[in-house]
């Protein structure tokens, strides 16, 4: 065995890619390769490149802190001395709520009760969905099937349906409403190629359904469209976030363990919440990129680390079950806001 073979055998290894990760990547590819996006006719939706998603994933690298493009202008010199004790805000609500009036010294940021994230539709009879979302893109409900007859459902716009034109497009009616099916002429190695239906689900509400395998036929797609119900599915994550800056939205998530909220007015400004199981170690101060100061604080009555780095704040603490929560925000947040936000994070189960 030569050195290259030894490197291949003993070099850094990786677990096999999960079915969910493959399905998610495939869904993103299919969403990106809109059948109508023939060069010259429609531009490629570059926003789907998941640039911020990469940063999200980077945040889970064990023992490595990679902060996602912290967005905003670092404050020149935070004057707030990190408190040694922080009291958790009273029972953060899950609905759209009243502001808690945090806003200490930062006009642009006011923490309010977060809305429980949900996907507004359910497809009857398909079982439970998993969900994926890239920054700026829609939440996609992914219904995985053993035989790879996967189904994707997401909200879209009438423009999306209008863009599906030309050869291979079939106009259909779903309960008297307009829809279009893209009839693929392509080949597939494994079963039937995917087929997409865009239709008006309700007045002004357009949905996009992609079926593969058994669901990759016009009849199956139309049948599925008839089973779409306005029944919200709660997006389940390992943790819930009780407080978010007023007006900010859940913009992306990954593996039910990383959430990214974003300011829609300044989409480059975001904060991340990461959950890690109890078996994982806490980050050490030496592992924080651009660390300026590390302070011991208390969150939810438990010890926590507050890291002030060149480009971001990070708080990490263990929850009651010893699992870990990390909150990373731009430096435009005050220390109090970062700590309040962290204190609002609860374990989901």
């Amino acid at each position, binding site marked *: 065995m030569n050195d290259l073979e*030894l490197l291949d055998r003993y070099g850094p290894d990786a677990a096999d890619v999960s079915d969910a*990760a493959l399905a998610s990547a*495939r869904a993103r590819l299919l969403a990106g390769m809109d059948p109508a996006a023939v060069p010259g006719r429609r531009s490629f939706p570059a926003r789907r490149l998941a640039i911020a998603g990469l940063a999200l994933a980077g945040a889970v*690298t064990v023992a490595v802190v990679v902060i996602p493009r912290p967005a905003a202008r670092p404050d020149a010199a935070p004057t707030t001395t990190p408190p040694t004790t922080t009291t958790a805000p009273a029972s953060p609500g899950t609905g759209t709520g009243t502001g808690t009036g945090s806003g200490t010294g930062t006009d642009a940021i006011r923490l309010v009760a977060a809305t429980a994230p949900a996907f507004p539709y359910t497809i009857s009879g398909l079982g439970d969905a998993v969900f994926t979302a890239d920054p700026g893109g829609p939440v996609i409900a992914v219904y995985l099937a053993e035989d790879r007859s996967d189904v994707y459902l997401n909200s879209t716009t009438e423009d999306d349906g209008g863009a599906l034109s030309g050869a291979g497009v079939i106009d259909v009616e779903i309960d008297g409403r307009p829809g279009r099916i893209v009839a693929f002429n392509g080949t597939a190695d494994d079963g039937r190629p995917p087929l997409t239906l865009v239709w008006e689900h309700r007045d002004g509400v357009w949905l996009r359904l992609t079926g593969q395998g058994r669901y990759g036929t016009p009849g199956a797609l139309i049948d599925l469209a008839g089973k779409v119900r306005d029944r919200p599915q709660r997006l389940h994550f390992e943790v819930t976030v009780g407080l978010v800056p007023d007006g900010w939205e859940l913009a992306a998530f990954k593996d039910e363990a990383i959430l990214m909220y974003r300011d829609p007015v300044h989409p480059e400004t975001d904060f991340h919440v990461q959950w890690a199981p109890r078996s994982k170690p806490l980050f050490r101060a030496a592992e924080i990129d651009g660390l300026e100061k590390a302070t011991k604080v208390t969150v939810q009555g438990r010890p926590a680390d507050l890291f002030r780095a060149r480009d971001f704040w990070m708080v990490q603490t263990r929850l009651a079950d010893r699992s870990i929560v990390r909150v990373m925000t731009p430096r435009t947040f005050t220390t109090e806001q970062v700590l309040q936000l962290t204190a609002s994070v609860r374990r989901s189960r």
Partner: protein
Amino acid sequence: MHLADDVLIQESVREPEQFAPLFDRHAVAIHRYLARRIGAPADDLLAETFLIAFRRRAAYQPLGLEVRPWLFGIATNVLHRHVRQEERHYRALARAAREQPAPHDDERADERVDAAALRADLAAALARLKPGDRDALLLLAYAQLSYAEIATTLGIPLGTVRSRINRARKVTRAVLAVAMPSEGEK
């Protein structure tokens, strides 16, 4: 009907959906390559790699490079934006391997300890390599690309590929020579 990769790419220029089977054929291999180099972010980089490939499909030259090495090349370029993260990944793996508790009640415990030590040393060595040297070495060792394919993939002369791989192999051979004298010196 099973069409060749390059035919699918050519046809996907007119019919974008023809690109999907390429994902089904190559996604697992590309993900493994990415995951061995950067860990968990591979899940996201996989989608990015194929989206970039899709966007560039019109520029694909069927006679210049097979589709598989072309995809590995795109994946490698995607990794370039995460060089520091990749190096941290290796250092984290090295630390984790060294801190792994020694097995007991196992007659093969010594072998497993040796393997863990070797993994730690190799990961640390990869972290020390220059990024260009590491690209060439891992495209050779992990992706099994030829020197000529690596040259085309990275856009560098064949001679440069040889020198980069030679430099990188000196480092990894040194690690192997210490850890496994009879193997590393072959």
